[in-house]
């Protein structure tokens, strides 16, 4: 009994244990439900999985299933970010514990009962428990926002190396706070139409209504919600990575006000889509996105400079190649920042191109082509966020030496091959006709599946290792049990 109690204590009461559980849940869900679509369906794998797991897939309920699938994965990601924030930032122990309790119960309920409802017949008790799970996550978010209150003197920043006001208010904490609060408000933009359409049981995917010239307020709200929530998860992970890398100095002082301003304006723009401001909402969104992205650029510059500086320490006049080697020496530190840069080619760049040339290019294509761009675009952003989390997680669990290098580079290279392939697939109509596209489609599909499939294999290996470790008396988990304070690992 003590054996089980010790393991459960580690998994559900320590920072790293909680993160491990959430990563494992996402890995499991991705592995199982990833077999139901795309090439896996083509190869017939889906039919086998559906039969073996006795799933009940009603055609008319596909959109609803997918919405619950996205949400259950997203909730686990939000939980991971919350664990990281509560592990990295100073806050009262009561709030730290309360946030973790509520969000853990919440995401597990949302994931287990939501997926049960979506894929194994519509049992309304399960739906109720799914909604209860989402509600607990929201409540945890409220507690997190309270815990992050930056105008509490105990949370003031005393070190002048970091962005702070004259009175000492920690600007980075303000950024965390602003992101948490706007996330809570933006969640309402999904919850309200979710209740409206869900109770009427009329689920739809935003990408399927994008061309309708007249959308209802509720439809606009759904479109705004999905865009802003992903952007906020991305901003939050940027702040987390910044804290992990001990972001400071002049770039920190420039970046934090930019991120705060960008986050607030970005949200105002998105919230504006359900108001008479809708015609100019996109402009407000661009105005907000620009400083937020500039803030992230500051972090990348700071992080890369730091990696180079540390890597060439002791070399009097380092050459360009030596600096480059220093930059890429540790993929777990280089990777998250690189992924933020790579995101510009596969997500932001595509989004900007689409916005600028929408009527001239993209709206000349059929709606189904536009759907591919839209869904590809945000799938890549979600997956990039996931890889950044995995890279930080690799450092967190103490990967060292060759394993660290292999794990880090595998995540970077495999994911980037997949993301680049997705981008080519999305944009293929720019350079190839429908009639002649098949060889290109086959190749990019192969690369996508190879990249993502191998990434999942690596994740599975890590999870198996962590599972085996739990059976050891003095495994890695015993060390991690005492490493609750992630800020102690900030160097």
């Amino acid at each position, binding site marked *: 009994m003590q054996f089980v109690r010790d393991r459960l204590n580690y998994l559900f009461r320590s920072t790293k244990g909680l993160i491990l559980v959430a990563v494992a849940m996402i890995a499991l869900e991705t592995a199982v439900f990833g077999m139901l679509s795309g090439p896996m369906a083509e190869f017939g794998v889906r039919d086998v999985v559906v039969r073996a797991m006795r799933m009940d897939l009603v055609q008319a309920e596909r959109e609803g299933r997918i919405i619950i699938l996205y949400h259950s994965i997203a909730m686990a990601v939000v939980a991971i970010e919350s664990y990281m924030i509560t592990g990295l930032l100073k806050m009262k122990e009561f709030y730290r514990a309360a946030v973790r309790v509520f969000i853990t119960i919440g995401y597990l309920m949302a994931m287990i009962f939501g997926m049960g409802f979506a894929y194994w017949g519509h049992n309304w008790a399960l739906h109720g428990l799914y909604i209860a799970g989402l509600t607990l996550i929201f409540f945890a978010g409220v507690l997190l926002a309270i815990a992050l209150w930056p105008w509490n003197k105990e949370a003031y920043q005393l070190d002048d190396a970091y962005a702070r006001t004259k009175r000492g208010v920690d600007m980075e904490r303000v950024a965390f706070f602003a992101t948490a609060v706007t996330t809570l408000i933006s969640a309402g933009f999904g919850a309200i139409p979710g209740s409206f359409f869900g109770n009427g049981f009329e689920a739809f995917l935003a990408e399927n209504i994008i061309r309708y010239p007249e959308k209802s307020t509720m439809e606009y709200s759904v479109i705004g919600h999905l865009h802003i929530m992903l952007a906020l998860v991305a901003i939050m992970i940027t702040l987390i990575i910044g804290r992990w890398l001990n972001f400071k100095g002049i770039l920190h002082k420039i970046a934090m006000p930019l991120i705060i301003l960008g986050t607030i304006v970005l949200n105002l723009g998105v919230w504006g889509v359900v108001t008479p401001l809708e015609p100019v909402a996109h402009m407000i969104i661009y105005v907000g996105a620009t400083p937020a992205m500039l803030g992230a650029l500051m972090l990348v510059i700071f992080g890369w400079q730091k990696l180079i500086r540390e890597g060439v320490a002791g070399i009097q006049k380092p050459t360009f190649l030596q600096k480059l080697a220093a930059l890429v020496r540790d993929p777990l530190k280089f990777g998250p920042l690189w992924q933020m840069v790579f995101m510009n080619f596969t997500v932001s760049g595509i989004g900007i191109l689409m916005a600028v040339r929408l009527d001239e290019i993209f709206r000349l*294509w*059929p709606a189904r082509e536009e759907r591919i761009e839209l869904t590809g675009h945000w799938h890549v952003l979600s997956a990039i966020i996931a890889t950044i989390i995995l890279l930080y997680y690799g450092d967190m669990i103490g990967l060292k030496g060759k394993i660290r290098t292999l794990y880090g580079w595998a995540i970077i290279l495999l994911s980037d091959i997949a993301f680049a392939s997705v981008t080519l697939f999305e944009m293929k109509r720019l350079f190839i006709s429908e*009639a002649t596209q098949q060889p290109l489609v086959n190749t990019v599909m192969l690369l996508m599946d190879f990249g993502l499939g191998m990434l999942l294999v690596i994740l599975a290996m890590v999870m198996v290792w962590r599972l085996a470790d739990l059976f050891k008396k003095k495994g890695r988990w015993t060390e991690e049990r005492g490493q609750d304070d992630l800020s102690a690992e900030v160097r």
Partner: protein
Amino acid sequence: MKRPIGPLLAVVLLLSACSPVDLNAPLPVYETGVDPEAWALVPAGEFLSGQHNDPVTIEYDYEIMVTDASVSQYVAFLNQALADGTLDIDGDQVVGFYPGDEFRAVKHEVEIAAADYLFVPLGDPASRFAFDGTAFSANPGYEAHPMTNVSWFGAWGYCGYNGYVLPSELEWEKAARGSTDDRPFPWGDEILRNNANFYASRDPFENMGSFGSRTSPVGFYNGQTYGGYATLDSASPYGLYDMAGNVWQWTGDAYEGQHYRYLRGGSKDTYEMDLRIWVRNNATPTYYSPGVGFRCARDP
């Protein structure tokens, strides 16, 4: 000696992505026994529309083509309409007159003024018909395949020339679903590979390693076995074939404030989710594709 296997594999992969596609690869020819000239009567009455099964009543009887318009049928139209001056050749296009739509300058709306518009392109290697400078003909083997690479104007023109119309979305949907239940596919609740021609459905016309999907002859999925390939009878409740898969079908509605025209039914190039009866696609009316065709409707 270390061999650069990784880079070699990458080069091979990249080259394979750029390999040319033979658009005129040999085609199996089968007689389906389904007459493209046949029409089905859809009686007035209520049916369940859309994904959420909204009851809708169509208060008149109408007839709709049992199959998509075939290449042969369209070629006959092109020859006749070109001869009588209804259509013109304009460079590499066959064009015809369209009287235009009311323009409301809604965001993203493009004005469709009265003018000549593209019906079909000439010289497109993906087209299944040929033009020798004086007459059109169906490519051998494709006579009974659905007419593709035809714009909305081309579909509208064909139907109008023959005294028909393009079906509205609701007319199309009722014809596909029938009036008795909320089935997602014209034949019922489930889809199997031999119900319809869709992406990677392993029909005798596709080669996913090379040219990908190709159209199947109209009415192909009628329960017959063709050269060892057994199809399921996938007619709609009113006896229509290919209402799911093979080619997207243009519908006739011109909606206020938008120039897009709507397509239904999914195609040989889409996953089965797009074959569900309520799924809508849309495109500018000048759009054409090897995966887009149409059928007409008329008064009984």
